């Protein structure tokens, strides 16, 4: 944390918003969601229900850096396009 003039001048403890404030939360994952593009019908349910905001709306790509592997997308996918696969040893 740099102490620039502004932060010293105000002497406040203001946090700044950043992706991954808990680190690369993808490391928490035990099961990894894998999406089959052929089965996907772009219904956007996985995007809406992702608690971690780890799926992009336009391409429905999964951000494995932050996806915690909760598995909600697999359960809610109506076409079975997302399957949870066990993570291999890192």
């Amino acid at each position, binding site marked *: 944390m740099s102490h620039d003039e502004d932060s010293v001048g105000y002497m406040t403890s203001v946090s700044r918003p950043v992706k991954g404030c808990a680190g690369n939360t993808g490391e928490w994952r035990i099961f990894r969601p894998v999406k089959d593009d052929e089965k996907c019908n772009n219904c956007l349910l996985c995007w*809406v229900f992702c608690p971690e905001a780890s799926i992009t*709306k336009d391409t429905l790509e999964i951000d494995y850096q932050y996806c*915690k592997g909760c598995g909600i997308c697999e359960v809610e996918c109506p076409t079975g396009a997302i399957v949870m696969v066990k993570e291999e040893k890192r």
Partner: protein
Amino acid sequence: MVSFKDLPEEELFLAGSTACQGCPSSLALRIAFKALGSNTILIVVASCTSVLQGSYPLSAIDLPLMNVAFATGGASASGVVAGIKALAKRGELEEEPTVLVWAGDGGTYDIGIQSLSGAAERGTDFIYVCYNNEMYSNTGTQRSGATPLGAWTTTTPGGKAQHRKDIAQIMIAHRIPYVATVSLAYPLDFYQKMQKAKSIKGTKYIEMLAPCPPGWKFPSSQMIEVSRMAVQSGMWLLYEHEDGETRFTGATKRMIEGKVKKKPVKDYLEIQGRFRQILASPEGQEAEDMLESEVSESIRRLQGWVPEYI
């Protein structure tokens, strides 16, 4: 009619927070921010959300945010709203921001009720969202005023002996302009109710059932499914109260009208671990019946039924 395509792509809740896997609060914050937009001031009452919004010097929420003590949700909002009014009077604001208070059931049902009641009585212009996970999840799952009958918590090891209280009805009794209940299984209903709350002036109270995977003891992947089952079994009723009238909405409306059959409460109890003790005990059937009658009593009350007192 709003569809998923109409929801904004912008994420104000940033990925990589400290929330548990499948956390209902983080999902609810995402949807709420999509409805309210970036001109919002968030006040977080002590709860899990105080943790998952990030620790200094980093934050997972891309909005002005204030962490406040347990009992001060309504009081802090009153202060912020007064500040906004003063700035607006001096002409320093182009557009007045929406003030959103985000509190758990502990900070609403038990500890925060007096400041919330005061702010509602003064008609403070803000939205109060209670994400109700029916226990003090942040401190290790103790019982709260929202814990339903029969549920296990660390302080009710054999199942809670009392019924939960109905705080949405207490808020309706404040004669505030808008009260609504929402469920995460119906995100468009949630989104529209948040937008409606934003458009109304005065105190708005929205309550959401937040099934907590570690607290309620079910797999994180089942979070939406448990939310849906709560609504389908009647243990969580979706309605909104406006202009002195209560209307059932969405899935609950279909259930009340008889278009969809109500599922037994037992189906909801069995998919969670917190009711395992009571269901296995000799009092299991009695607790189930009491919850079933709690559901029908709540429905009758919302329909305008006046109990006959002797």
